[in-house]
């Protein structure tokens, strides 16, 4: 990442990317429920319709399946479409269009119809949203050939990957964690692309590889700082691209560290971790020095109450525990690590991402 200091939140970065791409390409259409309202999808579409008109920034009826089909129709007729859902769950209503038509038209048509549609979908977390507003569903989307599925983690990628998605001739689904919207980071002003091909090493280390994505990255970075005090160096990989899944970067890292933790945004069971571990194992049966671990949501729906949410979402202490286990850290040191963690952990409610954020969402 270039060394510039232009701090934007991810949602600001998304807005900027959308704005610049709308300006650049008059064949780009935005569509979604609430995109022209005063909240503008958490600020990511604010006022765009004032600049580009309601013909190009289309406020939609509450008809997810319909507008997904409409977007596909536009996109096989020379347009690019950015379709936006305030919660990923709303896209469940349109899976037939996504899985059968967006994903397969290029294939079935023997290369005649590609479907350049980008679907942004927000994963809810916190403030008691409850079971139908806080799923991530990444394997539901990632299991279909023909789709690309990405999950950015930094404002830099929020912009760069959205731009790449819009340039991409394929259907690209973007999973945006609600708390990731608040994350701030350096974002260049220009139009730039971030590749949609592979994970990204964001911290070099030697002892163990931790793969995470989206908001979870922050928890892992937090852990890495604590572990540094104990001479443990972890390599952090930002997964970023769930489909097509290219594990080469992870493989190289594990080749060095011999150890792997996959920290899931979604459920552990039938999550992304199993696929990553199996792929690595297929490439090199002897690569692991210790049993690779997966950390993910437990096998239950998301409860609303913060008392339950606190135990539902795995966090830095779960990561530290797995790392200690794999590295055989002795009990005394383990205790010290946990104590340091408890010292440093922000005095934050579990159901909000940072003190700036006040509900409702």
């Amino acid at each position, binding site marked *: 990442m270039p060394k510039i200091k232009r701090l934007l939140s991810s949602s600001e970065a998304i807005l900027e990317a959308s704005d610049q791409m709308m300006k650049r390409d008059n064949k780009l259409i935005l569509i979604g429920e*609430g995109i022209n309202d005063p909240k503008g999808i958490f600020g990511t579409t604010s006022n765009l319709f004032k600049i580009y008109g309601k013909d190009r920034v289309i*406020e939609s009826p*509450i*008809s997810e399946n319909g507008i997904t089909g409409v977007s596909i129709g536009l996109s096989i007729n020379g347009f690019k479409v950015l379709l936006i859902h305030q919660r990923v769950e709303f896209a469940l209503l349109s899976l037939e269009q996504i899985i059968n038509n967006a994903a397969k038209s290029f294939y079935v048509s023997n290369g005649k119809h590609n479907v350049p549609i980008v679907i942004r979908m927000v994963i809810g977390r916190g403030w*008691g949203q409850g079971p139908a507003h806080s799923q991530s569903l990444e394997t539901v989307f990632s299991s279909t050939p023909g789709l690309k599925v990405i999950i950015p983690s930094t404002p830099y990628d929020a912009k760069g990957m959205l731009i790449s998605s819009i340039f991409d001739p394929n259907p690209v689904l973007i999973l945006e964690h609600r708390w990731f919207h608040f994350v701030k980071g350096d974002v260049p002003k220009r139009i730039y692309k971030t590749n949609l091909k592979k994970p990204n090493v964001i911290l070099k280390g030697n002892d163990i590889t931790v793969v995470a994505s989206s908001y979870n990255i922050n928890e892992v970075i937090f852990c890495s700082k604590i572990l540094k005090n104990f001479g443990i160096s972890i390599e952090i990989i930002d997964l970023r691209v769930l489909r097509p899944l290219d594990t080469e970067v992870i493989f190289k890292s594990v080749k060095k560290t011999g150890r792997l933790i996959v920290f899931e945004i979604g459920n552990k069971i039938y999550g992304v971790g199993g696929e990553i571990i199996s792929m690595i194992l297929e490439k090199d049966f002897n690569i692991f020095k210790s049993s690779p671990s997966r950390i993910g949501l437990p096998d239950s729906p998301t*409860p*609303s109450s913060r008392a339950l949410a606190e*135990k539902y979402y795995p966090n830095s202490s779960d990561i530290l525990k797995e790392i200690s286990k794999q590295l055989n850290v002795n009990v005394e040191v383990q205790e010290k690590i946990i104590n340091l963690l408890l010292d440093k952990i922000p005095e934050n409610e579990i159901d909000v991402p940072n003190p700036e954020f006040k*509900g409702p969402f």
Partner: protein
Amino acid sequence: MKSLYKNLFSSLLKLRMTENEIAKKYSEQEMRCPVHLSIGQEAAAVGVCSNLELQDQVYSTHRCHSHYLAKGGDLRSMISELYGKRSGCCGGRGGSMHLMDPSVGMMLSLPIVASIIPIAVGAALSLKLKKKKNVISVFFGDAAVEEGVFHESANFASLNKLPIVFVCENNKYSCFTKINERQPSEDITRLAKCHNISNLRMNGNNLINVYEKSKMIIQQIKKKPEPFFLQLDTYRHVEHCGPNSDDNLNYRGKSELNNWLKDDPLENFIKFLKGENEYDQKIVNEINDKIMIEINSAFKFAKNDKFPNPASIKKFVYA
């Protein structure tokens, strides 16, 4: 004050006062879940539900406080649920958008727009199969009819002559987006007609009218099972989600806003009672006090209630 009027008034006031209290306490940030208040729309819930028997069922959406209370749902369990506490009607698992109290026929509320509608139709089918003379009421907003599943449900209900009232509370908005940006006409009964479903559109802020009309409708259905579609035009007084006014954002026209805020179901009903010479300040005060006590006690209970045991997360995943 006639006992019918007293009941209607009590029910209406209870909804209003409860939600006002929620609004007041929300900024304490102890109710940590989204809340969709029905302030301004209560006549729909009270007017329809006052005609329902215990065995008649209600199904609702994200905006379910009013239906839950009007159907007789337990107040403490509701407030506890908002506080994410153990005695909440969902044990704290659902939050405000999933309110239910099956013991009084308040069966289910769901936050995905229109998702509740086919389920309510299935409930109506269960009545038919059991040959029961009851009725199902399903409440939803003006945006729900834009979801295809509304039509699939209406077609199914019509085809099978099921005992269900579709109650569409048209508050003109889906979040900030006005109905005319989403549909070619604000007369939603056209979407019932096309499925050969009897229907009626009326102002939904006049409690006594809503009550009388839905009484007829429900009686009729109980005599001869068939779906009915009732469009109740109404207005939401506060923001879509949350306790505050958001009219500083100017998404609702000034004159529209003023006209509709004036057309308040509670004031309308008081005016009606006065016109009928049925308004009795002393009784009103008594009702008010009784409700206040109940509300205070519910909030106190909820605040003192324990949080659910974190170990219970894995409970009830499978039966």
